[in-house]
């Protein structure tokens, strides 16, 4: 994999609008943005309603993912081009999710919805009709996802990258500053984690920084050992999917997992170690 295999720019996306075999998908937590205007021909996926199990705190299962993609008219052979708001957090999460269930051809639009809007490119309110398909997913690829016990066991052994803001990392805030403060029972971070906010990987317009800038950010400034396995986490796993994309897809590190339970789970566990303040 390299950057050109996984990331495309807005010109590329614009030239593929309406191309058979390319499905453009906007992914957001709040899909009202899609409803007001989206890239022409794009369909939508709702991060919460479509990708989270409505009862258990987990993903939709393989059957649920197959039903979703079949209903949205996505085939196994299609190239799925993902983009979204929030600097592509939820689109990166969906990218990771599609990979988890084994979809082969997935791309992320560099800069996502923000860059598209700031470029004043065309947005449409037409909702396309796509014929249903019979999508077949693979079993979840456990090499891309980690759960809490593996995270606790990784303390001091693997790279732990906490991609939240410095105030969330040190324990001053429990949630990003655009939200009321809520969720986890305790503030702080997982011991031995390094704080590399997701935002350091992105330019102001939402595009990713260059490979050399990214390499020096994680390996140089943050002191990650690229020879070790890495786990990324945030609060609910979508900002860390953005960093997973950087480390696993752009920088091609072989063993990077996203901890989607993230701080909402870890900060509410009984009996696990927590650190406050700056990284030690």
């Amino acid at each position, binding site marked *: 994999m390299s950057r050109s295999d996984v990331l495309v720019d807005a010109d590329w996306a614009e030239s593929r609008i309406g191309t058979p075999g390319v499905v453009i998908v906007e992914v957001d937590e709040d899909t*009202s943005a899609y409803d007001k205007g989206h890239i022409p021909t794009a369909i939508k996926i709702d991060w919460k309603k479509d990708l989270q199990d409505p009862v258990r705190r987990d993903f939709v299962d393989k059957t649920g993912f197959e039903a979703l993609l079949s209903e949205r008219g996505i085939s196994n052979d299609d190239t799925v081009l993902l983009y979204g708001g*929030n600097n592509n957090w939820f689109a990166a999460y969906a990218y990771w999710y599609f990979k988890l269930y084994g979809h082969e051809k997935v791309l992320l639009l560099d800069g996502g919805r923000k860059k598209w809007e700031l470029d004043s490119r065309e947005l449409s309110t037409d909702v396309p009709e796509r014929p249903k398909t019979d999508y077949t997913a693979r079993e979840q690829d456990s090499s891309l996802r980690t759960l809490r016990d593996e995270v606790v066991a990784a303390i001091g052994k693997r790279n732990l990258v906490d991609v939240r803001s410095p105030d969330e990392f040190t324990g001053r805030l429990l949630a990003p500053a655009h939200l*009321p403060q809520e969720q986890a029972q305790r503030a702080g971070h997982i011991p031995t984690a390094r704080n590399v906010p997701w935002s350091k990987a992105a330019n102001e317009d939402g595009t990713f920084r260059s490979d050399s800038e990214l390499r020096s950010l994680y390996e140089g400034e943050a002191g990650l050992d690229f020879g070790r396995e890495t786990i990324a986490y945030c609060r609910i796993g979508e900002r860390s999917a953005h960093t997973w994309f950087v480390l696993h897809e752009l920088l091609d590190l072989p063993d990077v997992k996203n901890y989607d339970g993230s701080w909402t789970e870890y900060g509410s566990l009984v009996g696990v170690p927590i650190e406050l303040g700056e990284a030690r």
Partner: protein
Amino acid sequence: MSGANPASTAGTGGGCGAPAGGVSASAATGTPGGQAVVEGRVTREGAPVATGYARLLGTGDEFVAEVPLGDDGGFRFFAAPGSWTLRVLAPGGLRAERSVETDYGHVTRVDVTI
């Protein structure tokens, strides 16, 4: 180090995403309560700027949060007490910056013309 802000137990759906204009302070908390709220509107030639982004930055330009502007050009952040920079981005390379001071229990109003 001060403790985490315990102010709100109001639900926002549990996600991290930024709704256009930011989460409503009144819907989330009823009042600013213990929150340090920064809010305002972005206008250009008297009209709201509905397509654009408000970013809250800490010391050294450290990114803190970002919301897309609402239909009325509005934005809202729930920050920690302190000094921040508010930066607005809009199509056509338009941008503006303001310094902001916040404290718990206060709504700091910042209206921006670009």
